[in-house]
Structures are given as structure tokens and as C-alpha cells.
């Protein structure tokens, strides 16, 4: 394991249980600290499985998955959840927010599960407001209900939530797929600006190769992983 790689998978294999058996094996996947990586792949190429393995919601059956120097295997289930909260901010494709919560509640939610991240931001509500402002969200949005926001606004709130307390890693799973082209580029500008400011390592999944210019590195799922399907 090289010293400055923050994510390090070696011979990691995972097989989903159940009838539609689907197994993913990743011989090697390294991401350096502070790098931004675009992960390209069709649907069904194992992107979600790979991200779940990095996030520690699923545990590799064999091989090793190390995140920021910690082998996830060595952590208990509860510690992995805590570890994820501390180390990784997550943005989904859509429906990122709890619709009944306020914008502030949504942004501060990960801090509930990550005491160190909470300690890192001295005044969480203020940092939430600053992030909102930096991400171009209208003023006074903090107390609105998440359900009342436009999709674009919701995605930006999701960025604020993923970045609050400056976790070392940001994982974004096709965050722009629900946005139109203009909003997409606008969104990426804002996200990259914040990622650069916090020196966050970024892994973003997409199926749009045109985005590659913005990233330090582009990786195709087919190049790093093999998939086995078994019809049972």
C-alpha cells in the first residue's frame, strides 16, 4: 500500500447473496489523497457494489479494502458505520434529503454520527450557512423544508451535507443525472470549488465521459473490475 493512497483495494471480491447471484472482483484500485477520480461505467457494471465496499456498508468476502489507512475488515459493523460517518461524505443520484427535515437539519445530520467531524467545525450551523452560501443557495433557505426545494437546490444541499466537517473523502454517485446541462455544469463548478478548498479526495461515478476533463483521473469500471453473473 503506497503511503499517499487514501483508498486501496487489493483482490477485493464480493458476492451478493440471494438467487440473482452477482459477484464483483477488483484486483487493484488505488486513489491518491486529494485526487479527483471519475469512475465511468454502464449500469450493472458494479459501480454501486464498489462504492458500497469503499463505504463499508458491505464487507469484501476476500482481499482487502483500506480507507485512509484503515483496513475495513478490522472494524466491527458499528465501527464501520462510525468510520464512514467520519471519513466519507456521500451524495446520491437524487432524493438525497429527508424531505420532512429542514435544510439545516439535513446538512447537520452526518455530524450526529461523527463526533470528530462535529468537533472540526466549531460552529456547525454557521458552517452550514457558509457552505450554503458558497454553493449559491439563496439566503434564508436554511430553515425551509427540504421537500420544498428544487432538485438542483436539493443536490447542492447534499453537497453541503457531504462536505460539512471536512471529511477526507467525497463519494458522489451520479449527482448530476437529474439536472439539465446548464445546471449540471454549474453544479460541478460549485462542487469542485469546495472540494479544492477542503482538499477532499473525490470519487464521482458517472456514465458521461464528457466530464473527464474536470478530473485528475478517469477510470473505467471495466479496467479495474470483473463481474461474474450466475444464472441459478
Amino acid at each position, binding site marked *: 500500500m503506497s503511503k499517499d493512497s487514501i483508498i486501496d483495494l487489493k483482490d477485493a471480491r464480493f458476492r451478493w447473496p440471494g438467487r440473482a447471484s452477482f459477484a464483483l472482483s477488483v484486483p487493484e484500485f488505488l486513489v491518491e489523497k486529494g485526487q479527483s477520480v471519475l469512475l465511468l461505467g454502464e449500469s450493472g457494471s458494479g459501480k454501486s457494489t464498489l462504492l458500497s465496499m469503499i463505504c463499508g456498508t458491505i464487507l469484501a468476502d476476500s482481499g482487502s479494502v483500506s480507507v485512509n489507512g484503515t483496513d475495513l475488515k478490522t472494524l466491527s459493523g458499528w465501527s464501520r*458505520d462510525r468510520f464512514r460517518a467520519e471519513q466519507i461524505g*456521500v451524495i446520491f443520484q437524487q432524493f438525497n434529503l429527508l424531505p420532512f427535515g429542514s435544510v439545516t437539519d439535513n446538512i447537520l445530520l452526518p455530524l450526529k454520527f461523527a463526533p470528530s467531524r462535529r468537533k472540526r467545525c466549531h460552529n456547525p450551523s454557521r458552517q452550514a450557512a457558509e457552505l450554503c452560501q458558497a454553493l449559491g443557495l439563496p439566503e434564508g433557505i436554511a430553515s425551509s423544508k427540504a*421537500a420544498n426545494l428544487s432538485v438542483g437546490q436539493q443536490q447542492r444541499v447534499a453537497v453541503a451535507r457531504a462536505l460539512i466537517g471536512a471529511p477526507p473523502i467525497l463519494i458522489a454517485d451520479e449527482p448530476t443525472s437529474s439536472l439539465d446541462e446548464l445546471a449540471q455544469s454549474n453544479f460541478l463548478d460549485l462542487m469542485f470549488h469546495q472540494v479544492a478548498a477542503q482538499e477532499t479526495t473525490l470519487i464521482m461515478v458517472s456514465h458521461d465521459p464528457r466530464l473527464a476533463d474536470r478530473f485528475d483521473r478517469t477510470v473505467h469500471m471495466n479496467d479495474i473490475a470483473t463481474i461474474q453473473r450466475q444464472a441459478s
Partner: protein
Amino acid sequence: MILRLAFGSLLARALTVGMTILAIALSVALFLGVEKIRTGAKASFADTISGTDLIVGARSGSVQLLLYSVFRIGNATNNVTWESYQDLANRPELEWIVPISLGDSHRQFRVMGTSAAFFEHYKYRQGRSLEFGIGVVMDDLFDTVIGHDVAQTLGYNVDDPIVVAHGLASFAKHKDQPFRVSGILEKTGTPVDRTVIVSMQAIEAIHVDWQSGAKTPGKSTPIDAIRQMDLTPKAVTAALVGVKSPLKTFSLQRAINEYPEEPLLAILPGVALQELWGIVGIAETALLAVSMMVVVTALIGMMATIFSSLNERRREMAIFRAMGASPIAILGLLILEATLTAAAGAVLGLGLLYVGLFIAQPLIDSAFGLYLPIEAPATRELLVLVAVIFAGAIVSMVPALRAYRLSLADGMMVRS
């Protein structure tokens, strides 16, 4: 904040959650209401008579004797002769004795002949004495004291004349001898409220011209003549007895039950009340069981609601998971929500109970003579509420465990 989000999540599903809360509230109100009526009925039952050591009547069953002598339900099969009564009254163990003579009625209310000692010795609700709302104890032969309900129902006031009918629901009236209301008693919540009280002599007086239940034709003794007559009763229906020392109670009871001249029965009111409650109590237990089942049904309804909401909430669970919430936290969140729901239901149910009590209390009081006190919830009732909330938490474990398994299997990458 987690609590606020749980609230928010509940609010977002306000309609279904509201229905669930309402169902729990109604069931809790029903359960507490039944419990309230049960304890109220039992207390008012046991409070009907106190301070009396023995009730004596002609030999029948103890429950029957209690029913007709105290509750004025049913009729005596036989009377006790005046001689036996005198014998009894002269016994040294006796502190006091009050005769009771039943058999006549006024409108729908029973008429009871007794002595002035009745007002002194009849006690209810742990030793409370009868009190006069207005007027005084009967003074004249044709005076009567009426219970609170009698006065209320028939609109009587002091000095109003009333006519007593022979027997119950009878057309034969003792028209020649109208009575005058001399006093009206305060409400007691006992059968006394529905009783017209006259003296023993008055009972004799109105039967002067009567032979075996029918008026002797053509015979009408003038009132002045009746007043001159010897109106010593020929018989009493029952007698209330107080003994000098509680230790003597059993030996006196035994002596009366073995009285050689006439078959008599002496009962301990407390024991007979217990016996009677034992009969009534079965229905009451059944009622309690049914209302408990209603609570269980409401809780199962809540469980079903949580189950059906799980699918639409998978996304919510995934967000919590991605933010670092462990599956245990998801489990806890669902249980917390269910507990909040059950708690809201329990509190609302308590509120409904009090609203219901405020509305129903006077109605129940006047219709059944059952007084349900409106007071702060007793420890027992609070325990019921806690039990309902606790049961809600337990019941929600089933869907919560399913959510736990789902969130383990889904990880955080649900696509919905």
C-alpha cells in the same frame, strides 16, 4: 435533532399516523373507562351500607336478603313476626336495631317503613350518615322523608302531599291516607335516594282497612280513628342490627340462625356484598378482557401501519445509513417513532376519558346511581398508560427488525 427528525417523519405521514394515534387513544379511553366504571361500581357497591353488623330477615338466601333489604331489588318471601323481632331486640349483645318494612310503593319508588333510629344508624360510604337537604325527620304519623332522586324525579318539595300505592306497580292506592313530605335527604348514591321513608306505624295505619292485599269493601276508617288505634307492627321485613362488641357478631349471627321459634337468617353485610360482587364481577372481568383486546388490536394496527410504511421509507433509511447511522440506530429510530405514536395515543386517550367523564358523569349518576369521581389519574391508571406505551415499543420491534434487515441488505445504494 434526531427526535425532531422522528417527529418530522411522523408529521410527514400525519394522516396515517393520526389515524393510528386515534385508534390507540380510543382503545385506551375505552379501557380506562371500563376500569373507572368497574372500580366505581365496586366502590359504590361496597359503600351502600356500612356500620351495620348484621342484617336479619326471614330465612332465604343471603344474597336475596341483601338485595331486598339494602338494594330494594326483588321481594321478601316472608316476613319476620313482631314477636321474634322483639325477642331479638331484647338480646343483650345488641347495641341497636332498626326495623325495615317493605312492600308498598309510590310511583316507581319503593316505600320503606322504619323507625327514627334508621337515620341515626344507617351509614354508607365508610360511616357517613344520612343528611337532610331540607326538612326534618318525620314527626307525624303521616309524615314521610323522601330520598334525593324521588324528590328530583317527581319534583316534590317539603309539605307536598303524596299517596302511597299498595304493593308494587299497583293500582290499588291508599288514597284515604295521604302523606306529607317532611324532609328530603341529600344525595347518597345509595338506594336510599330512591326510597320513600315512612314510620313503621304509618305502614300499619295505611293497612288498617286492608285484608290480605285487598281493600275491604265499604270500610273506610277515618284518619282520626286510625290515630287512636294501636299501630304496633305485626311484622317486619328485615332488621339492621348493630352489636356492642364486634366479637359478639358471630355468636349473635349463630343464635339468630338457630332461633327456634321461626326460621330466620342473619347475614354479615360485607360478606354478602362480596358474594354478590362475585356474581356481578364475572361480567365485569369479561368487559375488562374485551377492552384489553381492543387495546391489543389498536397496537397491532399500528404494527401493520409501520410495516406498510417500510417500503416507501427505504430511501429514508438509506440516507440515514449513508450518513453513518448503524442498522441498530435505524431499529431504534423506528421504535422511537412507535413509542412516540403510542405515547400520543395514550395521552390523547386519557384526555378523551376525562372529556367522556365530564359529559357522562351526571348521566351515569342519575341513571344508575353510580358516581364516578373525576380526579387526577391514579397510579394504576398511569401504569396502564405506561404499559400501553411499552407494549407499543415491543410491538414495533417486529417491523423495526425487518427494517434492520432491509437496511443491512440494501446498504446505502438503494435506487428508488
